Structures are given as structure tokens and as C-alpha cells.
């Protein structure tokens, strides 16, 4: 791999041993993937995936401290994934004890490290950092050193930025060095689609279910998706962006998709059309039956599969302002139709702290509160990341949350029915 004189000097120790290790990490990373050079990171801000002071991650905190002590700090400020705890989210005594004393006992000290490393601000804890209210929205063509699979796939696909599916820690290494290896999704060739996905559903497919089906089929490949513009339109409206946010998160967590193209909609597909499709691309046809099959085959991990739901999470990835407003109306209407005043299952909507603040200035905030729904900035995945949740029947419309926890996935319509009318869908 070609290195500039300056990069070579850093690798040789001109800026100290720690910076040499940072550069060595990036060079090894690039060489593993046949990168030809290191290219400058051009986004205004970085985004890190590691937001949680999990006790078991001491090796990561030790590494971060090594960077701080050596003054190896990036010139970029960054946002970071959501906090794992929020006292407003229901938890029993035992859960609170486990969360605070055993699991996230290093949260405070880790947040101090994040401040020293360049956290954008106190509200910069969200997986959906690209939402307008948060302010970390890259431009088309920007080179990023981000991690967080759902943010990477959104930045690549919807915003047209360029970022590999970097791992946590690798994200901060690229930002500190100011450069990342040029391979994979940073190259024109790496952005070509090796799958054509033909959506032949009779009705608009559920974003998180369609994303799951595609992710499990194409794994790390790039899909070019046709047949959904009739529902999504050809412009990136707020509603469409929210759909793509949820869809992408499912492709990235149920598989390993870092970029997708949607015909006539996403920026590169609009520019280059079918020229984005690589020769010999494989074909995957999705219809309603295929989506039903995918949903049927999700394993049920509840200890008591026929038990009643005890908690519902909506918002993994974090909800947008428009989604919060739409869901407020849907819950209100669902309750009214069922003759109920409050949701029948404790329900938590999760969003970015900056979105939450803005939402709370609107009339919808009180209306949502009146339905009994709790609004939080928490990461539901981190909340559920403990053995007690196995015996707690959690439902969700997030296929990402389903993948990493014992929560049970339902479509949005099914979830709405369960929380407003009661009962459990089979």
C-alpha cells in the first residue's frame, strides 16, 4: 500500500509510539483488504459505536485511556451510539441492581473519556446521528471513518457518503490519523451491486421485514432493489428517509449490508441507474409469501412463548421526528377504536436526545404522554443485554433488536394492535 512521506513518518514513530500504533492498525487493516492507499477523512464529524460503559469492555477503556494519555486525539468531534440507561424506562429492582452495579458501572467514567476524546455535545448519544436535529449529516461523497452498522448503511445508501463497515475502535483510529484505507465501499467498483432484488409484493412491504429478508440473502453484498419506488416515490422525503433508516438497519444487522441502491430513489441509483449493477449479478425475488416465510421462521426466544408481552420497544434505530408524530396519532387512533385510554403493554419509544427535546416542544409530546407511552433516549439493545430479559416477554417492531436479544418481532400493525387492543398475535 502506498503511504505518503508523512504517513510513513508517523508509522515510523515521528509522532510517538501510540500514534505509530494507530497508523500500524490502519495500514494492517488496509493491507488485509488490498487497499492501494490511505485517503483523507473529509466529513465534518465522526461517529463512534461504543457508547456504553459495560464493565466487560475494560480492554476498550484501557485502550481509549492510552490514546488520551498520549494526546492521540482526533481533530474531528464525534457523535456516539445511545446511552444504555434511562431511569424513565421500566425496570424492576433486580434489573436496576444488575444495570447499575454490575453491567454499566463504568458508564460515568467512560463518558468522561468520550468528552476528552471529542464528544460533540451532551446530546450526541444516538445511533441515528444523521437526523437533522442531531447535526451529524455527511455530504454526498464525504469519506467517513464511522462505525455503527445502521448509520454506515444509511450514510452510504441514502446520503451517498463513502464508508466501510468499520468496526468499533477502528472508527476512532481513522479519525485520529485523519485517513482511512481506500478499499471496498470507498471505491467505485466496491459500490457496484452484485444482487438484483426484485420486490413483487402486492402491498408496501414492512421496512424492517424487507430489510431482514434482503440482509439474510445477500449478506455483505450490495443489492440493487427494484419495484419499491411505487410506494416510496422518487424523492427522499422525511417519510421515505425514515423507511430507509429502518430498512437499512435490518439489512445490516440480519446480514452485513453496508450499501444498497434503490432504483430511481437513492442518489447513486438516480445518477447511474442500472450501470451500478455488476455483470453476473444474482437475482432474488421477494413477494408477500417470501416475507411471510421470513417472519414465520424467526425463532421465539421467550421462556414462556404463550405468555403476555411485558414491554414493547419501538425505535431501534432511533425514531425520527416524523415517526414520533405519526406513531402518536396511530396510538391515539388505535386506543380510541379499542375504547381504551392508555396502552395495555408498557411501551417505550426511543429517539435521539436532540429529537426528544424538539419533540417535547410540540403538542404531540403531551398527546403521546396521555397514551401512556414513555419517550426515552435509551438504546433498547443495551437495555435488553442481560439474562433477566429472557424471562421478560419484550415485543418490538425492530428486526435489529430481535436479532441481538430475546425480543419478539411483530410488524408495526401487529404491534399497534397488541399495545392498544391487547392480546397476543401468533
Amino acid at each position: 500500500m502506498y503511504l505518503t512521506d508523512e504517513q510513513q513518518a508517523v508509522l515510523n514513530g515521528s509522532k510517538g509510539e501510540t500514534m505509530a500504533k494507530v497508523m500500524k492498525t490502519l495500514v494492517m487493516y488496509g493491507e488485509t483488504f488490498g487497499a492501494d492507499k490511505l485517503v483523507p477523512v473529509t466529513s465534518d464529524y465522526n461517529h463512534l459505536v461504543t457508547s456504553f460503559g459495560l464493565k466487560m469492555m475494560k480492554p476498550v477503556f484501557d485502550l481509549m485511556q492510552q490514546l488520551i494519555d498520549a494526546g492521540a486525539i482526533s481533530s474531528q468531534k464525534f457523535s456516539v451510539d445511545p446511552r444504555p440507561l434511562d431511569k424513565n424506562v421500566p425496570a424492576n429492582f433486580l434489573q436496576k441492581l444488575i444495570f447499575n452495579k454490575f453491567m454499566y458501572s463504568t458508564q460515568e467514567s467512560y463518558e468522561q473519556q468520550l468528552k476528552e476524546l471529542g464528544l460533540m455535545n451532551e446530546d450526541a448519544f444516538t445511533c441515528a446521528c444523521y437526523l437533522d436535529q442531531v447535526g451529524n449529516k455527511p455530504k454526498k461523497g464525504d469519506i467517513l471513518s464511522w462505525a455503527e452498522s445502521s448509520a454506515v448503511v444509511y450514510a452510504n445508501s441514502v446520503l451517498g457518503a463513502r464508508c466501510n463497515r468499520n468496526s468499533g475502535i477502528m472508527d476512532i483510529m481513522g479519525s485520529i490519523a485523519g485517513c482511512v484505507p481506500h478499499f471496498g465501499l470507498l471505491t467505485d467498483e466496491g459500490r457496484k451491486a452484485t444482487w438484483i432484488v426484485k420486490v413483487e409484493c402486492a402491498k408496501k412491504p414492512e421496512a424492517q421485514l424487507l430489510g431482514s429478508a434482503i440482509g439474510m440473502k445477500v449478506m455483505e453484498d450490495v443489492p440493487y432493489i427494484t419495484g419499491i419506488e411505487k410506494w416510496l416515490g422518487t424523492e427522499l422525503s422525511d417519510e421515505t428517509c425514515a423507511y430507509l433508516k429502518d430498512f437499512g438497519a435490518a439489512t445490516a444487522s440480519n446480514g452485513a449490508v453496508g450499501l444498497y441502491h434503490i432504483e430511481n430513489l437513492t442518489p447513486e441509483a438516480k445518477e447511474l441507474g442500472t450501470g451500478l449493477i455488476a455483470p453476473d449479478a444474482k437475482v432474488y425475488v421477494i413477494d408477500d409469501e417470501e416475507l411471510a416465510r421470513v417472519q414465520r421462521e424467526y425463532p421465539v426466544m421467550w421462556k414462556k412463548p404463550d405468555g403476555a408481552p411485558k414491554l414493547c420497544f419501538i425505535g431501534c434505530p432511533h425514531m425520527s421526528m416524523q415517526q414520533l408524530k405519526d406513531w402518536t396519532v396511530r396510538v391515539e387512533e388505535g386506543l380510541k377504536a379499542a375504547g381504551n385510554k392508555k396502552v395495555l403493554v408498557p411501551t417505550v419509544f426511543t429517539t435521539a436526545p436532540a429529537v426528544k427535546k424538539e419533540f417535547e416542544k410540540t403538542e404531540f409530546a403531551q398527546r403521546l404522554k396521555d397514551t401512556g407511552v414513555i419517550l426515552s433516549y435509551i438504546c433498547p439493545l443495551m437495555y435488553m443485554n442481560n439474562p433477566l430479559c429472557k424471562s421478560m416477554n419484550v415485543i418490538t417492531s425492530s428486526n435489529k433488536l430481535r436479532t441481538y436479544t430475546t425480543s419478539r418481532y411483530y410488524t408495526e400493525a401487529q404491534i399497534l394492535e397488541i399495545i392498544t387492543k391487547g392480546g397476543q398475535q401468533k
Partner: protein
Amino acid sequence: MMEFKGRIVAPGTITAEAVVSHGGFNTLASLQGALQFGDKKATCGDQNNPDLHGKELAGKALCLPMTIGSTTGGLVLYCACAMGRQPGCMLFSNPIDSLAAAGSILASVWLEGVQMPVIDSLGEDFLSYVKDGMSVTVKEDGTVVVEG
């Protein structure tokens, strides 16, 4: 006995018992529970992986096509290495993915004395041939010998 030749991503030699995943290995879903709650045998917690769910991974020859899922994957693998709960080696039938590569590289640059040979591009035949419980030897030149 069969021999397979791959590319060395992280050097080293080892003989270990195979555990085989035919689907993508979700590092976060597989290891988070084990690392967090003191399971030194690193029992796989990924409910979506019928090949590995409930099986011990620490010290084993983990045979897989690739890793998938959350981009915390690399740091989870890095933590497993720092805590001595990593697989004995990782043997990929496909070219390695960015998350597994990151975990392996971070461990090699930032941790001392960690041994986890990583070989990729072993081919689909490798994953078809190797079965749970077989003895797998990784040689210095990236040759993988499967017996059993």
C-alpha cells in the same frame, strides 16, 4: 484427512477441535452474553445460529464463512482476546470481512501475547468437509489440516 490452503491474516500455529458455522457468525450476538457474565468457555449465545447456539467457542477452531451483524463485532472480538476467551483460531472459507479483520488486527497491535491464528479464503470445500469435533491443525504457512 484433508488439507486446505488459505491466506494468513494473523500468523500462528495451533491444533484445536472444530466448531462449524455454515451461516455468518454474528460476533456480538454470539459472544456478548458470555463476555459479560463471566463465561470463560464463551458459550455461543446467538439464537439465530442453529449450528453454534449453546456451544463453547473459547479455544476452539472456529470454522465459518464470515462474520456478520453489528459493527461492535471487532471490539467484541478484541475484548474476547484481552480476556483470554477467544477462539483458538478463526478459519474463514470466504475472504475475511472488515469486522473480524478489525478484531484480529486490534488484538495483534494493541494487546501483548495474544495468539489467535486467522486464515481466510479456505474455500467452500473446507466448510463442506469440516465437522464439529474434528481435529484442526493450522500450520505456519497457512495450511489447514482437518482430521477426524
